[in-house]
Protein backbone atom coordinates (compact mmCIF):
# COMPACT_ATOMS: atom_id res chain seq x y z
CA UNK A 1 0.00 0.00 0.00
CA UNK A 2 2.64 2.46 1.09
CA UNK A 3 4.80 1.81 -1.93
CA UNK A 4 1.98 2.25 -4.45
CA UNK A 5 3.08 4.83 -6.98
CA UNK A 6 0.61 7.49 -8.05
CA UNK A 7 -1.76 5.97 -10.60
CA UNK A 8 -0.77 6.46 -14.19
CA UNK A 9 -3.08 9.12 -15.67
CA UNK A 10 -3.44 7.15 -18.89
CA UNK A 11 -4.88 4.17 -17.08
CA UNK A 12 -7.27 6.24 -15.05
CA UNK A 13 -9.39 7.11 -18.03
CA UNK A 14 -10.81 3.61 -17.66
CA UNK A 15 -11.29 3.53 -13.91
CA UNK A 16 -11.76 -0.20 -13.53
CA UNK A 17 -10.02 -1.64 -16.55
CA UNK A 18 -6.44 -1.08 -15.48
CA UNK A 19 -6.74 -2.89 -12.18
CA UNK A 20 -8.72 -5.86 -13.31
CA UNK A 21 -6.17 -7.28 -15.70
CA UNK A 22 -3.93 -8.72 -13.01
CA UNK A 23 -6.57 -9.62 -10.42
CA UNK A 24 -6.37 -13.11 -8.90
CA UNK A 25 -10.15 -13.41 -8.92
CA UNK A 26 -12.43 -12.03 -11.58
CA UNK A 27 -14.34 -8.98 -10.46
CA UNK A 28 -17.59 -7.69 -11.86
CA UNK A 29 -19.84 -10.67 -12.58
CA UNK A 30 -20.29 -11.29 -16.29
CA UNK A 31 -23.83 -11.07 -17.73
CA UNK A 32 -23.65 -14.81 -18.44
CA UNK A 33 -22.95 -15.64 -14.81
CA UNK A 34 -25.73 -13.34 -13.62
CA UNK A 35 -28.16 -15.05 -16.01
CA UNK A 36 -27.15 -18.53 -14.85
CA UNK A 37 -27.41 -17.51 -11.19
CA UNK A 38 -30.83 -15.95 -11.71
CA UNK A 39 -32.06 -19.05 -13.56
CA UNK A 40 -30.75 -21.31 -10.78
CA UNK A 41 -32.46 -19.20 -8.14
CA UNK A 42 -35.79 -19.28 -9.94
CA UNK A 43 -35.49 -23.02 -10.55
CA UNK A 44 -34.57 -23.55 -6.90
CA UNK A 45 -37.55 -21.51 -5.74
CA UNK A 46 -39.81 -23.49 -8.04
CA UNK A 47 -38.43 -26.78 -6.77
CA UNK A 48 -38.69 -25.72 -3.13
CA UNK A 49 -42.28 -24.47 -3.41
CA UNK A 50 -43.86 -26.78 -5.98
CA UNK A 51 -41.66 -29.77 -6.87
CA UNK A 52 -40.63 -31.03 -3.42
CA UNK A 53 -43.34 -32.99 -1.59
CA UNK A 54 -44.97 -31.44 1.47
CA UNK A 55 -43.42 -32.78 4.66
CA UNK A 56 -46.01 -34.99 6.35
CA UNK A 57 -45.10 -33.87 9.87
CA UNK A 58 -44.02 -30.23 9.53
CA UNK A 59 -46.22 -29.20 6.63
CA UNK A 60 -45.34 -26.42 4.22
CA UNK A 61 -43.05 -24.59 6.61
CA UNK A 62 -40.44 -27.32 6.08
CA UNK A 63 -39.82 -25.72 2.66
CA UNK A 64 -37.78 -23.03 4.47
CA UNK A 65 -35.16 -25.80 4.69
CA UNK A 66 -34.32 -25.31 1.00
CA UNK A 67 -33.30 -21.69 1.63
CA UNK A 68 -31.99 -22.01 5.17
CA UNK A 69 -29.53 -24.89 4.79
CA UNK A 70 -27.91 -23.76 1.51
CA UNK A 71 -27.47 -20.25 2.99
CA UNK A 72 -25.78 -21.72 6.07
CA UNK A 73 -23.44 -23.87 3.97
CA UNK A 74 -22.57 -20.86 1.80
CA UNK A 75 -21.68 -18.95 4.98
CA UNK A 76 -19.19 -21.68 5.84
CA UNK A 77 -17.77 -21.48 2.30
CA UNK A 78 -17.29 -17.74 2.83
CA UNK A 79 -15.42 -18.18 6.11
CA UNK A 80 -13.13 -20.77 4.48
CA UNK A 81 -12.46 -18.33 1.65
CA UNK A 82 -11.58 -15.61 4.18
CA UNK A 83 -9.21 -18.02 5.96
CA UNK A 84 -7.19 -18.81 2.85
CA UNK A 85 -7.24 -15.19 1.67
CA UNK A 86 -5.96 -14.14 5.13
CA UNK A 87 -3.05 -16.59 5.04
CA UNK A 88 -2.16 -15.60 1.49
CA UNK A 89 -2.31 -11.92 2.43
CA UNK A 90 0.05 -12.36 5.37
CA UNK A 91 2.44 -14.41 3.22
CA UNK A 92 2.47 -12.35 0.07
CA UNK A 93 1.33 -8.95 1.38
CA UNK A 94 -0.66 -8.61 -1.82
CA UNK A 95 -3.46 -6.12 -1.28
CA UNK A 96 -5.74 -8.08 -3.58
CA UNK A 97 -6.04 -10.91 -1.05
CA UNK A 98 -7.21 -8.39 1.48
CA UNK A 99 -9.85 -7.27 -1.01
CA UNK A 100 -11.01 -10.88 -1.32
CA UNK A 101 -11.34 -11.07 2.47
CA UNK A 102 -13.30 -7.83 2.63
CA UNK A 103 -15.73 -8.91 -0.09
CA UNK A 104 -16.21 -12.46 1.20
CA UNK A 105 -16.87 -11.20 4.74
CA UNK A 106 -19.61 -8.80 3.77
CA UNK A 107 -21.40 -11.24 1.45
CA UNK A 108 -20.87 -14.06 3.98
CA UNK A 109 -22.46 -11.92 6.67
CA UNK A 110 -25.39 -11.33 4.32
CA UNK A 111 -25.93 -15.09 3.97
CA UNK A 112 -25.60 -15.38 7.73
CA UNK A 113 -28.37 -12.81 8.09
CA UNK A 114 -30.57 -14.90 5.80
CA UNK A 115 -29.86 -17.94 8.01
CA UNK A 116 -30.71 -15.96 11.13
CA UNK A 117 -34.00 -14.71 9.61
CA UNK A 118 -35.19 -18.04 8.25
CA UNK A 119 -34.09 -20.09 11.28
CA UNK A 120 -36.44 -18.68 13.94
CA UNK A 121 -39.33 -18.48 11.46
CA UNK A 122 -38.93 -22.21 10.89
CA UNK A 123 -38.34 -23.09 14.53
CA UNK A 124 -41.41 -21.26 15.82
CA UNK A 125 -44.13 -23.40 14.18
CA UNK A 126 -42.15 -26.65 14.35
CA UNK A 127 -40.43 -26.54 17.74
CA UNK A 128 -42.86 -24.10 19.34
CA UNK A 129 -40.11 -21.59 20.10
CA UNK A 130 -38.38 -18.83 18.15
CA UNK A 131 -34.99 -19.78 19.40
CA UNK A 132 -33.35 -22.73 21.08
CA UNK A 133 -29.67 -23.09 21.94
CA UNK A 134 -29.48 -26.22 19.84
CA UNK A 135 -25.98 -27.17 18.68
CA UNK A 136 -26.08 -26.15 15.04
CA UNK A 137 -28.11 -23.01 15.75
CA UNK A 138 -25.62 -21.92 18.38
CA UNK A 139 -22.52 -22.53 16.30
CA UNK A 140 -24.02 -20.76 13.29
CA UNK A 141 -25.05 -17.85 15.49
CA UNK A 142 -21.54 -17.55 16.97
CA UNK A 143 -20.04 -17.67 13.47
CA UNK A 144 -22.39 -14.90 12.41
CA UNK A 145 -21.20 -12.82 15.39
CA UNK A 146 -17.59 -13.40 14.32
CA UNK A 147 -18.50 -12.12 10.86
CA UNK A 148 -19.98 -8.97 12.41
CA UNK A 149 -16.86 -8.50 14.57
CA UNK A 150 -14.70 -8.87 11.44
CA UNK A 151 -16.74 -6.20 9.64
CA UNK A 152 -16.50 -3.90 12.67
CA UNK A 153 -12.72 -4.32 12.66
CA UNK A 154 -12.72 -3.48 8.95
CA UNK A 155 -14.80 -0.38 9.52
CA UNK A 156 -12.94 1.03 12.53
CA UNK A 157 -9.53 -0.62 12.33
CA UNK A 158 -7.50 2.43 11.33
CA UNK A 159 -5.30 2.81 8.26
CA UNK A 160 -6.12 0.50 5.32
CA UNK A 161 -2.80 -1.28 5.64
CA UNK A 162 -3.33 -1.91 9.36
CA UNK A 163 -6.91 -3.08 8.77
CA UNK A 164 -5.61 -5.59 6.24
CA UNK A 165 -3.14 -7.07 8.75
CA UNK A 166 -5.55 -7.14 11.69
CA UNK A 167 -8.40 -8.62 9.67
CA UNK A 168 -6.12 -11.33 8.32
CA UNK A 169 -5.20 -12.32 11.88
CA UNK A 170 -8.88 -12.34 12.91
CA UNK A 171 -9.76 -14.32 9.78
CA UNK A 172 -7.31 -17.04 10.79
CA UNK A 173 -8.36 -17.09 14.47
CA UNK A 174 -12.07 -17.14 13.58
CA UNK A 175 -11.67 -20.07 11.21
CA UNK A 176 -9.59 -22.11 13.69
CA UNK A 177 -12.25 -21.42 16.33
CA UNK A 178 -15.01 -23.07 14.26
CA UNK A 179 -14.26 -26.74 15.06
CA UNK A 180 -13.82 -25.87 18.75
CA UNK A 181 -17.17 -24.05 18.78
CA UNK A 182 -18.73 -27.02 17.00
CA UNK A 183 -17.61 -29.57 19.60
CA UNK A 184 -18.36 -27.33 22.56
CA UNK A 185 -21.96 -26.64 21.56
CA UNK A 186 -22.62 -30.32 20.82
CA UNK A 187 -21.30 -31.43 24.21
CA UNK A 188 -23.13 -28.57 25.93
CA UNK A 189 -26.38 -29.83 24.45
CA UNK A 190 -25.94 -33.53 25.11
CA UNK A 191 -25.42 -32.78 28.78
CA UNK A 192 -28.53 -30.58 28.91
CA UNK A 193 -31.12 -32.26 26.68
CA UNK A 194 -33.83 -29.88 25.53
CA UNK A 195 -37.46 -30.93 25.97
CA UNK A 196 -38.22 -30.03 22.35
CA UNK A 197 -38.33 -32.56 19.56
CA UNK A 198 -35.36 -32.08 17.27
CA UNK A 199 -37.19 -32.96 14.08
CA UNK A 200 -34.35 -31.51 12.07
CA UNK A 201 -32.12 -34.37 13.22
CA UNK A 202 -34.05 -36.93 11.20
CA UNK A 203 -33.99 -34.96 7.99
CA UNK A 204 -30.58 -35.95 6.71
CA UNK A 205 -30.93 -39.72 6.81
CA UNK A 206 -34.32 -40.63 5.37
CA UNK A 207 -34.59 -37.73 2.97
CA UNK A 208 -36.57 -38.70 -0.15
CA UNK A 209 -34.75 -38.25 -3.45
CA UNK A 210 -36.89 -35.33 -4.59
CA UNK A 211 -36.13 -33.44 -1.35
CA UNK A 212 -32.41 -34.19 -1.70
CA UNK A 213 -32.43 -32.92 -5.28
CA UNK A 214 -34.17 -29.74 -4.16
CA UNK A 215 -31.54 -29.13 -1.47
CA UNK A 216 -28.75 -29.72 -4.00
CA UNK A 217 -30.35 -27.28 -6.42
CA UNK A 218 -30.73 -24.77 -3.58
CA UNK A 219 -27.04 -25.11 -2.76
CA UNK A 220 -26.03 -24.56 -6.39
CA UNK A 221 -28.26 -21.48 -6.55
CA UNK A 222 -26.89 -20.10 -3.25
CA UNK A 223 -23.28 -20.60 -4.35
CA UNK A 224 -23.96 -18.93 -7.70
CA UNK A 225 -25.64 -16.02 -5.96
CA UNK A 226 -22.68 -15.80 -3.62
CA UNK A 227 -20.28 -15.67 -6.58
CA UNK A 228 -22.26 -12.90 -8.25
CA UNK A 229 -22.52 -10.79 -5.10
CA UNK A 230 -18.89 -11.51 -4.19
CA UNK A 231 -17.57 -10.30 -7.53
CA UNK A 232 -19.81 -7.29 -7.44
CA UNK A 233 -18.58 -6.46 -3.94
CA UNK A 234 -14.98 -7.03 -5.02
CA UNK A 235 -15.45 -4.48 -7.78
CA UNK A 236 -16.82 -1.93 -5.29
CA UNK A 237 -13.78 -2.59 -3.09
CA UNK A 238 -11.40 -2.01 -6.03
CA UNK A 239 -13.17 1.20 -6.97
CA UNK A 240 -13.03 2.56 -3.44
CA UNK A 241 -9.32 1.78 -3.16
CA UNK A 242 -8.67 3.34 -6.51
CA UNK A 243 -10.48 6.48 -5.39
CA UNK A 244 -8.40 6.54 -2.21
CA UNK A 245 -5.15 6.22 -4.17
CA UNK A 246 -6.20 8.97 -6.58
CA UNK A 247 -7.16 11.30 -3.73
CA UNK A 248 -3.79 10.66 -2.14
CA UNK A 249 -1.89 11.51 -5.28
CA UNK A 250 -4.04 14.64 -5.67
CA UNK A 251 -3.07 15.76 -2.18
CA UNK A 252 0.64 15.62 -2.98
CA UNK A 253 1.97 19.03 -3.96
CA UNK A 254 2.23 19.36 -7.78
CA UNK A 255 6.01 19.41 -7.99
CA UNK A 256 6.53 16.27 -5.97
CA UNK A 257 4.57 13.60 -7.73
CA UNK A 258 5.69 14.47 -11.25
Amino acid at each position, binding site marked *: MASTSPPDPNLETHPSGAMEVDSPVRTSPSPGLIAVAAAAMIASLYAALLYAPTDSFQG*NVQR*IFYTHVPAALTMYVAVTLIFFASILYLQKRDERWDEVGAAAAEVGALFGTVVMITGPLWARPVWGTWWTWEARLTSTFVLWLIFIAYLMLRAYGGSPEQVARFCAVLGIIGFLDLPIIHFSVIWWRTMHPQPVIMTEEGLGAGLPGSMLATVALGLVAALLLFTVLFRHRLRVERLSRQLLAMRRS*LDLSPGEDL
Partner: protein
Amino acid sequence: MDNFWYLFSALALAWAVVFFYLVTLARRARDLKQQIDVVQAQLERKND
Protein backbone atom coordinates in the same frame (compact mmCIF):
# COMPACT_ATOMS: atom_id res chain seq x y z
CA MET B 1 -51.68 -24.72 5.74
CA ASP B 2 -51.72 -22.89 9.08
CA ASN B 3 -47.95 -22.46 9.05
CA PHE B 4 -47.89 -21.14 5.49
CA TRP B 5 -47.33 -17.59 6.75
CA TYR B 6 -44.10 -18.57 8.40
CA LEU B 7 -42.86 -19.96 5.09
CA PHE B 8 -44.05 -16.88 3.24
CA SER B 9 -42.48 -14.36 5.63
CA ALA B 10 -39.19 -16.29 5.84
CA LEU B 11 -38.78 -16.41 2.06
CA ALA B 12 -40.03 -12.85 1.54
CA LEU B 13 -37.61 -11.48 4.15
CA ALA B 14 -34.68 -13.52 2.82
CA TRP B 15 -35.25 -12.30 -0.73
CA ALA B 16 -35.82 -8.73 0.49
CA VAL B 17 -32.49 -8.73 2.33
CA VAL B 18 -30.62 -10.00 -0.74
CA PHE B 19 -32.39 -7.55 -3.00
CA PHE B 20 -31.73 -4.64 -0.67
CA TYR B 21 -28.03 -5.59 -0.57
CA LEU B 22 -27.88 -5.72 -4.37
CA VAL B 23 -29.39 -2.23 -4.61
CA THR B 24 -26.91 -0.94 -2.01
CA LEU B 25 -23.99 -2.45 -3.91
CA ALA B 26 -25.12 -0.92 -7.19
CA ARG B 27 -25.51 2.48 -5.55
CA ARG B 28 -22.08 2.26 -3.93
CA ALA B 29 -20.48 1.36 -7.28
CA ARG B 30 -22.26 4.26 -9.01
CA ASP B 31 -21.27 6.79 -6.33
CA LEU B 32 -17.66 5.62 -6.40
CA LYS B 33 -17.49 5.91 -10.18
CA GLN B 34 -18.88 9.45 -10.02
CA GLN B 35 -16.33 10.45 -7.39
CA ILE B 36 -13.52 8.85 -9.40
CA ASP B 37 -14.57 10.94 -12.41
CA VAL B 38 -14.49 14.11 -10.30
CA VAL B 39 -11.03 13.37 -8.88
CA GLN B 40 -9.89 12.30 -12.35
CA ALA B 41 -10.85 15.70 -13.75
CA GLN B 42 -9.06 17.44 -10.89
CA LEU B 43 -5.95 15.34 -11.46
CA GLU B 44 -5.90 16.15 -15.17
CA ARG B 45 -6.31 19.87 -14.49
CA LYS B 46 -3.41 19.72 -12.06
CA ASN B 47 -1.17 17.81 -14.45
CA ASP B 48 -1.76 20.16 -17.35
